[in-house]
């Protein structure tokens, strides 16, 4: 009997949950490791946040508005933990998504199904991202401690969330792409960590080192007549700062405090004043990461589609 045409497409609507996503989320939520990771993560983050609150409130003078300073410390600690989470946990979940199928000899069987490479990649992305999002949203109630103490505006939480979510998407897709190219999960995990750590820590460090030396050189050369060079330097450094979630959040908050504008700022890294207005680093990061995510997604789909065609 010829197979029914109704059965040709396993996913009839783009909003239908893929069987791969269902399987992976179900098996993840069945595992005791999931609850252990969630419990330990929340216990560590909340414990440290309370400790930070106690230390900050004991060490700061008891004046009007001092609780606001403590609130800011707690808030940025929590944001830092979110960034660490997406930098370390998201790649770990994604890096094994395809290479583990290869190692377990289930990949050929999965490729044999009518699921397209794009459907497989989307399903793997959703299931890898799902748990990271669960961890991110599980820590959101802790932010109420920071808001209770004051010193934090709601838009700062929105900035932080935008950056963290864009980073989670980008790093998960990076892990998936590396996984689609790697033979082993260990190799895929190490490569993904190297890339993500390079972005999160390497780029801001390099920018910091180069910025101080370049701005000194520009100032000592008395280069007030070189506005173009100074402008290019400002744009380059803004881009570098905007590539890392840590530096993007810190810089966005700093520029807002100085200029009072959430969306734009006038960079003056060269120390020569500024004639440019650029989008805030968090906006640049979100934009860059979304574009990069689309590119990496398409590369992963193409890679999966090309398996067996070499």
């Amino acid at each position, binding site marked *: *009997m*010829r197979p029914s045409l109704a059965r040709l497409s396993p996913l*009839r609507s783009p909003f239908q949950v893929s069987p791969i996503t269902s399987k992976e989320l179900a098996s993840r939520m069945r*595992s005791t490791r999931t609850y252990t990771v969630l419990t330990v993560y929340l216990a560590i983050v909340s414990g440290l946040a309370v400790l930070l609150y106690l230390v900050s409130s004991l060490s700061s003078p008891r004046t009007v508005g001092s609780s606001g300073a403590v609130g800011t410390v707690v808030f940025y600690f929590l944001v830092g933990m979110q960034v660490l989470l997406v930098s370390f946990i998201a790649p770990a979940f994604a890096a094994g998504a395809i290479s583990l199928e290869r190692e377990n000899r289930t990949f*050929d*069987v999965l490729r044999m*199904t009518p699921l397209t490479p794009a459907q497989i990649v989307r399903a793997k992305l959703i299931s890898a991202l799902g748990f990271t999002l669960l961890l991110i949203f599980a820590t959101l109630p802790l932010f109420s401690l920071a808001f209770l103490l004051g010193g934090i505006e709601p838009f700062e939480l929105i900035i932080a969330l935008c950056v963290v979510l864009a980073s989670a998407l980008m790093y998960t897709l990076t892990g998936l792409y590396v996984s689609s190219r790697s033979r082993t999960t260990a190799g895929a995990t190490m490569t993904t960590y190297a890339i993500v750590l390079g972005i999160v820590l390497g780029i801001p460090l390099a920018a910091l080192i180069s910025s101080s030396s370049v701005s000194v050189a520009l100032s000592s050369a008395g280069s007030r007549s070189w506005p173009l060079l100074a402008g290019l330097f400002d744009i380059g450094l803004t881009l570098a700062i905007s590539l890392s979630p840590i530096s993007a959040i810190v810089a966005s908050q700093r520029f807002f405090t100085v200029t009072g504008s959430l969306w734009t700022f006038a960079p003056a890294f060269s120390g020569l004043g500024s004639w440019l207005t650029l989008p805030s680093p968090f906006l640049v990061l979100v934009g860059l990461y979304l574009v990069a995510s689309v590119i990496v997604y398409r590369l992963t789909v193409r890679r999966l589609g090309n398996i067996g065609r*070499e």
Partner: protein
Amino acid sequence: MVSNLHPVIEIRNLSKRYGRRTALNGINLSVPPGAIFGLVGRRGAGKSTLLKIMATLLTPSEGDVFIAGLSITGDRLPQVRQWIGYLPEDFGVYPEQTCAEYIEFFAACYGVPPKERAPLAADLLQLVDLYHRKDTPADRLTPSMRHRLGIARILAHDPQVLLLDETTKSLDPRARVETRELLKELSGMGKTIVITSSNLAEVQDICTHAAIMEAGQITQAGSLDEILAVAPCHRNITIKFLGDARLAMNLIKACRGVVDVRLPAESGVSSDALTSIALLKELRVRFDGAYADASALLRSLMHSGVQVVTFAEES
């Protein structure tokens, strides 16, 4: 229904190259509907590569394969895949899934509606005699049970073409017999089955058609009778027994399928020892009969008072 006039699998001028190495060279082959087709050849002959191309997992360097008239190199891959069930020689299962969940997962991947999945899994597990293990984690099954689960999995979307790579190789004798019976049952259900093996004798009991592969080429292809006429398959059976060796040899020679019987050259058994009932003796039989003939040979020896200690086919 596929017309009986047209082959369900048609391979036209197929070649596969990996850099300079040619894995398959100019393969032309037709598999009629309902056939159990044996692809026989030594390791490295290209059987698994050919099967992977038929399963749409590899693309050919040249030529094409048509499954029910649909090209595997065209843009109708999802339709082609609905026709095929492929069981690799070595495949994994998801350790976190039970046997029933494993079948239901693949049924979902092939678009079987949610309400039909659980009854389908139960039916398939019953077919492969694993229903009593439906709630057992798939990775805790024995190799032969896991193999049967694999067969159930490839039937989840009711494909008409089953591609089985070295399907009985890693199985114990009992599981081999069970698998053969299962394949016959599936063939009776109208499925076209292609199986690979390195030994023609291993598949001759179930195959209706066969092709011999050597160095990436088909050297012979046709119905099983045609293949056996040009390439009789010999297997070696070693028999250890207590009793008169001359009597045993005469009995064996009289049996159907026996090509040759001899004492191992290194045994150096004296004439007296050959007839001594107490001494353990060994005979090597070249045999090209079916398994039923081998069974008849064993029965004949035992009925004649030869005390058979071991009766083993050499791998």
